[in-house]
């Protein structure tokens, strides 16, 4: 697996690199914890389908709700709509016991994309990233080498990584090193 990656990796300047790691635009983020009723109300407030299935994300435009656990979701929105998301969620959840914590600046997002994106991630993450086992729309908290990340497959050859800010240099450096020819 690793041989394929190194053998096929062209020069850094090439447009056909097997996997590219790049930062994604800034976003607003929240961790929502609560019952199934809380999750249903939150999804409705954000006009997104309720992610009832484990390890699945629902997304539309810049907004997304990622299943992290049976009682925990990561809510992502555009950089400018943090206040709007807070208002929508607070209004929808006012009568339901829940915890809503803004974590906008705790983590930053990267995209790993290219025909060998899964292999590059697998250099430091033991999850089975075959499309049949980790399809588009699947997301999970997991481990990349020594850093905890949230991994979300947004397209067959594209993953979004949510990385805690202080781990980002480590994660990017590790992936660049792993993909080096």
């Amino acid at each position, binding site marked *: 697996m690793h041989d394929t990656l190194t053998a096929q990796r062209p020069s850094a300047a090439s447009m056909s690199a097997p996997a590219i790691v790049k930062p994604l635009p800034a976003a607003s983020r929240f961790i929502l914890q609560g019952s199934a009723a809380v999750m249903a109300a939150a999804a409705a407030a954000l006009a997104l389908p309720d992610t009832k299935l484990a390890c699945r994300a629902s997304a539309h435009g810049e907004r997304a709700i990622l299943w992290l*656990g*049976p009682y925990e979701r990561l809510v992502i929105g555009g950089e400018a709509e943090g206040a709007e998301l807070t208002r929508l969620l607070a209004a929808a959840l006012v009568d339901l016991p829940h915890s809503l914590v803004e974590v906008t600046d705790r983590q930053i997002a990267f995209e790993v994309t290219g025909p060998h994106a899964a292999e590059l991630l697998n250099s430091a993450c033991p*999850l089975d990233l075959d499309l049949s086992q980790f399809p588009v729309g699947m997301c999970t*908290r997991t*481990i990349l080498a020594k850093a*905890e990340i949230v991994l979300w497959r947004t397209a067959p050859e594209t993953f979004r990584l949510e990385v805690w800010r202080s781990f980002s240099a480590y994660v990017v450096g590790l992936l660049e090193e792993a993909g080096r020819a």
Partner: protein
Amino acid sequence: MLLITCPYCGPRPELEFAYGGQAHIARPQQPADLNDDAWAEHLYMRDNAKGAHAERWRHTHGCARFFNAVRDTGSDRILATYETGTPRPAAGDLVGGAA
């Protein structure tokens, strides 16, 4: 690497999990009513099974939930995993039928 089946997430690599000690240990309802020996028994004394052992695990770097597993302490094989608060599976319901 072992694969451990989280009751919520399915089969996942061992390094996402943390061990949490023996399962099904009920905290005494009235600790103040216990003498020192009974309290020490609750706090410190655990089974040392050779074979099937019910224990707590936490999918720390996944869904972050605690759950229970029956593990064969001889082979390290996980024979069953189940949600916290549900009873230990009968021997016939374990992987391999009995342990």
